[in-house]
């Protein structure tokens, strides 16, 4: 069965509608039964199709009557507190979906900004960025630096613990301590240029690669 996206509106075609009704009704009743089995609570469903006056019910006429009576016996407020119709339910779905949309947009923005950060790190010009983008970029860089600091300080405290514990450990710690990295070449200066040339930055990167790998 191919998964096609179904439009959320009344199906005009009679036979298509009939088929869909049959399938979905079956699926719905199955889901009702499942929730009853898994959670062990009273559950019932009444479905009137557009085609006849006899409803489909689950689990049985008798059980539905019982559960519906139980429902109606509850205080009015409890009944209405968690009741939905199409109107209220769709509004809720719209709200939830908007929340998801916002979150996804934020996530995407973050990813885009990370890209910009790496591109500008490698030498791409900042000229094309708006003030707001520069703002966000700055924020992103701050965040990265914070995280780097955290990793570095964690590593330092681990090594301090190791160094403090025993002499052999101390020897190991010495091994772990890296030689101080060479200072960044000042004549290459900045990682990004005011001009649009990637060359200086690329050369710098290559320099780093050679020293590290």
């Amino acid at each position, binding site marked *: 069965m191919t998964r096609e996206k179904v439009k959320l509106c*009344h199906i005009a075609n009679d036979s298509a*509608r009939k088929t*869909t*009704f049959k399938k*979905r*009704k079956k*699926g*719905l009743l199955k*889901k009702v039964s*499942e*929730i009853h089995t*898994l*959670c062990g*609570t*009273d559950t019932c469903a009444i*479905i009137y*199709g557009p085609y006849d006056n006899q*409803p489909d019910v689950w689990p049985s006429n008798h059980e539905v009557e019982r*559960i*519906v009576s139980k429902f*109606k016996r509850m205080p009015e407020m409890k009944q209405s507190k*968690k*009741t*939905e119709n199409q109107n209220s339910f*769709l509004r809720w*779905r*719209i709200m939830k*979906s908007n929340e998801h*949309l916002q979150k*996804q947009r*934020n996530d*995407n*923005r973050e990813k885009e900004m990370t*890209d910009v950060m*790496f591109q*500008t*790190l490698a030498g791409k010009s900042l000229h094309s*960025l708006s*003030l*707001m983008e520069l*703002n*966000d970029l*700055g*924020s992103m*860089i*701050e965040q*990265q*630096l914070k995280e780097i*600091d955290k*990793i570095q300080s964690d590593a330092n405290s681990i090594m301090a613990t190791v160094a403090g514990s025993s002499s052999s450990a101390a020897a190991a710690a010495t091994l772990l301590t*890296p*030689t101080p990295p060479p200072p*960044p070449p000042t004549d290459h200066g*900045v*990682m*990004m240029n005011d001009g649009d040339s990637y060359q200086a930055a690329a050369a710098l*990167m290559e320099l*780093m690669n050679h020293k*590290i*790998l």
Partner: protein
Amino acid sequence: MTRKSKGRQKVEMVKMPNESNLQVTFSKRRSGLFKKASELCTLCGADIAIVVFSPGKKVFSFGHPCVESVIDRFITRNPPPTSGTMQLIEAHRNAGVRDLNMQLTQVLNQLEAEKKRGEELTQMRKASQRQCWWQAPIEELNQPQLEHLKVSLEELKKNVGKQAEKLMIQSSAPPQYFFGSSSTGNGGIHRQFDLKNTGFSSNMPNMMHPPPPPNMMPPPPPPPPHQRYNTGFSRGFY
């Protein structure tokens, strides 16, 4: 990347043994159930009532046109009344539901588009990560790499600040505004970068804060125009 959840698992059709799992399951499935019911009503014009009692003794119900009317119809075994007024009410209600469905569809489409974009971005990220060591997650970098990255980032930050300063001078804000706000010590430029939780502004004073020239224009009113650069995204960002 570690998965946050196990993904789709097959569930055994027996009452769930774990109490808290049961609650979660109920909540999720009830929501999904109502969604399916809502779709059945929309697509096929069915009238439905569903009543579910929760493990916590609360009762949830969904009904179209409403729970009460469908229950009554069932109990009395009578076909629904269809007076002229009723039909009018129903038509009105259905029109409202149609609108809501259209709205929902729109949002869902946008969501799908953004998700797709998100996947594209992730793919791009992965591709560049393979080529450039400095793009790898920082947990994977060794100490010298980390240090290099740090220094480069700090340099970049300075340049971002410089560029931003340049743009602000060139922007629509009149020059006296610029100097005026800096003389108040906590003016628009600082607020520009005064992002929540980043401490970014702490680095800015030396870079961007020009020495306030003496005898300039009287301080302007507090600067909402600069505020406009600090909206929306940064709040949602972290």
